């Protein structure tokens, strides 16, 4: 008789388990509407100078404030939810995944399943957030915009896992609420920071992906492909960190 595939089983059952996390589902329904739709509804339609990157140089273009808000509020929403999903996943994994190792799961099988679940949740979150955004605003280059948003959201999901390994649930919730807000909504927002951000603002996970989103959301040419690469590199770095803390966290049951 053929034994059941461990990674596929842990992945499938993990998806079901998180689909039953009603807090996560509620956030997925409520947050995009309240963050994105309301942001469009209450933002005054005036032209604002926006910093972006054109032909290799930082420049300023005039765009409507609702459009800029769309470019910023959508990744804040998806990063926030993905970060919480990562946090929940790690908090639960710390308690119980150690037992999976005892029954025979290899660390790589559980890690693949858990990270796969996070990737699927992030895909759904990005899809819902972009879908809500598209009601009010269409980015100039949709798929590049979505790619950058996915990279940023997965990065925040992995940061959520890291935070979940180090802090308790309440502290983790506060961190994952505040971090995307100050990173994407303040340091990377071209309305707040009109010139090139300070060096330390560039260390935040939002720097490279938001550059791509501002560029591809508000202009017709892609001038920030390199930034997408850097954003992906940042994701890989955080991913390795998350794997390390996950492994250590589940050993200390």
């Amino acid at each position: 008789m053929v034994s059941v595939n461990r990674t596929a089983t842990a992945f499938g059952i993990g998806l079901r388990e998180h689909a039953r996390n009603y807090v996560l589902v509620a956030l997925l329904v409520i947050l995009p509407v309240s963050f994105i739709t309301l942001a469009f509804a209450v933002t005054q339609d005036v032209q604002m100078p926006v910093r972006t990157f054109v032909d290799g140089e930082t420049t300023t273009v005039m765009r409507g404030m609702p459009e800029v808000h769309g470019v910023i509020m959508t990744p804040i929403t998806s990063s926030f939810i993905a970060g919480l999903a990562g946090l929940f996943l790690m908090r639960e994994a710390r308690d119980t995944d150690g037992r999976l190792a005892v029954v025979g799961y290899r660390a790589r099988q559980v890690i693949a399943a858990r990270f796969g679940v996070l990737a699927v949740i992030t895909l759904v979150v990005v899809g819902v957030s972009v879908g809500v955004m598209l009601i009010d605003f269409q980015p100039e280059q949709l798929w590049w915009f979505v790619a950058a948003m996915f990279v940023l959201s997965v990065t925040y999901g992995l940061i959520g896992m890291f935070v979940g390994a180090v802090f308790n649930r309440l502290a983790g919730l506060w961190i994952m609420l505040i971090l995307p807000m100050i990173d994407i909504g303040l340091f990377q927002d071209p309305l707040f920071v009109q010139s090139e951000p300070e060096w330390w603002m560039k260390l935040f996970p939002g720097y490279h992906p938001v550059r791509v989103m501002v560029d591809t959301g508000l202009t017709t040419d892609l001038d920030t492909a390199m930034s997408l690469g850097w954003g992906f590199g940042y994701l890989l770095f955080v991913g390795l960190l998350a794997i390390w803390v996950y492994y250590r966290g589940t050993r200390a049951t």
Partner: protein
Amino acid sequence: METTTAPTETVGESKTLVRGNALEKTYGSRLPLGRSTPVLTGADIEVRAGEIVGIVGENGSGKSTLMKILVGVLDHDVGTVERTGTIGWCPQEPLLYDRLTVSETFRLFGAGYGMSREEIDAAKRRLADELDFERYLDYRVDQLSGGNRQKVNLSIALMHDPDVLMLDEPYTGFDWETYLRFWDMAQDLADDGTAVVMISHLIEERSRLDRVFEVRDGLVHDVTDEETVSELRSDREGDDE
């Protein structure tokens, strides 16, 4: 720290399935000036096939730490652990996923044991019948009572017919009927050659145990033919009344 799965030798008629040698474990603090707590300071233990072994000791003596190290879920600082055969572990607190149903829980852990779908289903039906939780198979774990959750927790440790069964106070929350049924199952398993290791607080259970180890002062003492510190204390309290 060293852990092997190499075969261990036979003592008398019974094969040694688990052996811990000179085990040391200290829980450190995450803070630089925090206190570290030594729990085990050179513990030795061996468990043989077909016996029911009790591990006793006062609260905080290191019983669960010792068991987790023997199971392999917790790293030890110094010493060696040798294991032979498959292990089933029933932790004190049910380590289960709250939002999974009982059937899904069996499938998840059964896959880990390398069982086929048919074997998982058979084990699920058998254990649900023996421990009387068939009607809860489609319930989510967080919808179960404490006693039923503990039954599932125990069943996960048993479902693959392990060679060594490590149980950390497995009957917490059981009603009397289930408690008796549990002991029948433990005895049947031991008769079939399974080594059953159990952390226990109940002195009345001593007659059911083949050997008793007490964890005291970071060491493991064979007290099969003696009274343990807690029993002596209990006797003294009885005399005072």
